[in-house]
């Protein structure tokens, strides 16, 4: 049987994590957050450990974030972009990973375009695998950093109203966030055009509801999470391209419908003018850069938990 969740084995998804495990990571991440104007703490909790970042999909922020997190904990890191490596010469995923495992790293951080790729590997390899995003399935550290970011603005997740808007169907960020927020009793509204918002999402976790109109989704929201439109994963256009921003793009006037202290989040990279207007991205409500910063703190907590022998 695969070992799932943060066990000594790694971090494959949020769905199988216990609420208490999530709370533990978020608290520890709080400890790692730097004071204003200060760099991240430097520890040597992972001195002598080697972490391989294996990225089969282009990524800047997640890869750099994992690298900095590992280095701040004293670990050695090697980052491999699969383009240009043996993977592009036809080597299978299992063979590539077996080769890497033979070099005795302590963990592998992996991003892959195929859903379940880390779960598949976890069944065949004896090494902790940390999922840095698998296809359209999950992106566990993103949901953790999003929760950390919300908790910087609100005392608790319990009872909040969170709207997640955009290409839900193809979003691993949406799935991980839905699982995480549902474990804390959040009222979740998912919103997007029908072809990007399958009805079954309502059954993904308790407390989820669907809306096909922005105004309905945003009303009284504490948090608005905008998602990138993932053209590369879509087989056909969900609607006429000019209409997308008109009906599902976030503009300043929308914010008046939400709670007065609403925060706007986005996992990045943002497409200004596609899913949200520039004014929103740069507004007081936007915490997009806080998310990036929290990414490092949360990943430090995850790496330490998996590799550091700390509870």
């Amino acid at each position: 049987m695969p070992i799932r969740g943060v066990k000594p084995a790694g971090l494959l998804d949020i769905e199988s994590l216990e609420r208490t495990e999530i709370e533990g990571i978020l608290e520890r991440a709080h400890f790692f957050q730097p004071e204003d104007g200060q760099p991240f703490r430097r520890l040597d909790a992972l001195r002598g450990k080697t972490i391989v970042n294996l990225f089969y999909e282009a990524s800047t922020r997640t890869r750099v974030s994992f690298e900095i997190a590992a280095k701040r904990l004293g670990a050695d890191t090697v980052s491999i972009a699969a383009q240009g490596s043996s993977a592009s010469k036809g080597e299978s995923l299992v063979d590539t990973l077996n080769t890497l495992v033979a070099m005795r790293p302590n963990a592998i951080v992996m991003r892959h375009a195929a859903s379940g790729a880390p779960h598949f590997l976890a069944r065949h390899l004896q090494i902790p695998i940390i999922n840095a995003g698998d296809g359209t399935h999950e992106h566990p550290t993103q949901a953790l950093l999003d929760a950390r970011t919300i908790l910087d603005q609100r005392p608790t997740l319990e009872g909040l109203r969170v709207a997640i808007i955009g290409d839900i169907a193809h979003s691993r960020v949406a799935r991980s966030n839905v699982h995480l927020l549902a474990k804390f009793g959040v009222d979740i509204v998912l919103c997007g055009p029908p072809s990007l918002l399958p009805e079954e999402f309502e059954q993904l976790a308790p407390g989820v509801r669907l809306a096909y109109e922005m105004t309905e989704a945003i009303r009284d929201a504490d948090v608005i999470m905008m998602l990138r439109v993932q053209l590369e994963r879509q087989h056909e256009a969900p609607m006429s391209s000019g209409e997308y921003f008109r009906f599902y793009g976030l503009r300043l006037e929308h914010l008046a419908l939400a709670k007065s202290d609403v925060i706007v989040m986005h996992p990045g990279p943002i497409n200004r003018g596609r899913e949200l207007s520039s004014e929103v991205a740069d507004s007081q409500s936007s915490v997009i850069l806080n998310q990036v910063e929290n990414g490092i703190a949360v990943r430090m907590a995850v790496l330490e938990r998996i590799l550091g022998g700390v509870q």
Partner: protein
Amino acid sequence: MKPLLITHGRVIDPASGGDGLADILIRDGRIESVGTGLSDPDAVVFNAAGAIVAPGFIDMHVHLREPGIEHAETIETGARAAAAGGFTTICCMPNTLPVNDSATVTSYIVQRAREVALVNVFPIGAITKGSLGEELAAIGSMRSAGIVAISDDGRPVMNARVMRRAMELARAFDLPVIDHCEDLNLSAGGDMHEGRESVRLGLGGIPSASEDVMVARDLLLAELTGARFHVAHLSTSRSVEMVAYAKSRGIKVSCEVTPHHFAITDEELSTYDSNYKMKPPLRCRYDADAVINGIAAGVVDAIATDHAPHAGNDKMQEFERCPFGITGLETAIGLSLAELVHKDRISVNRMVELFTTGPANILKLDRGTLAPGAPADVTIFDLDSQWTYDVQQSLSKSRNSPFGGRRFRGGPLATIVDGEIVWNRP
């Protein structure tokens, strides 16, 4: 060859309606007589006390991969796995390399099977050349060479006009048209059944509707042309309803279901194990229940395995890159007993029918019966022995079964083809 006397078994023969303790005497590869107290001083005796003795089981839907994909399976290994699964006759789909779309390929398979296969092998010919869906294959010549049906299994004919012409020709040649019903536009990008589980796992969905719209189309074309239309591996609730309705309208339609579609559901996919990846995909509980109800209600005519071997390295990949298909010959009886008979959904007699007269009638084979004079194909199985399926010991060349390690109650004991015992449970 010495005569064979099978004694003391419970003989179930759906063709004659017979069910009772009896002996069977086989001579020169044919059933000589069925009755009590039979004897023959020269005969080899097989004591079947406690077991069920049935006409040889027929699997009308297998992939043998020869010619062309022999690293996954050959006619010889596939036939051996069939014998170990209690099958005496298998029908092989045409998606080989080259595709079986001509008398040359058909003859090769027939000849090769005669040389190396432990069981009877009947080829199914392609509907279109190369199974490309455009130009009709050499259907008449293939029939002369030995095909028993036509199908573009796995690469369904999308063009309704081409399908119409194929059905017209098939009617003239008295061949059934077997369709793998899948609208490729609706299923594009899908790796599993579309529903709650595909949304949860982030895998592309194959909606039930992609099967249903093609079943509907083909039923209408069957009505238009008068052809005999057979639905391969039917897997959805709506398709069961439509086939039942079409039968009530007198349309010449039959259908098969696979053991995996009634035994397991899409909830098995949580581990992203590619041994749960096939087409049609494992559906949800609702569809699986509908399939079982369809079997119980008599809508379903046959159980077929869709045995689809794939070499290990092809299945050791990211889920979405793995090919579709699982092996099934060796587990079909065990799964049917477990899910249908032991759960009291159907009688064992009805199960035997689904493996014998059902497919034999669809394909018009002179098999699937224990009538005196018939070819002596016999399947002996039991209802209660405990055994575990060890997929590493499979007689197939491939290992892509999701049922490795599963414990079974009842299964095949011996397989007899043309009067010869070709397999005995070790």
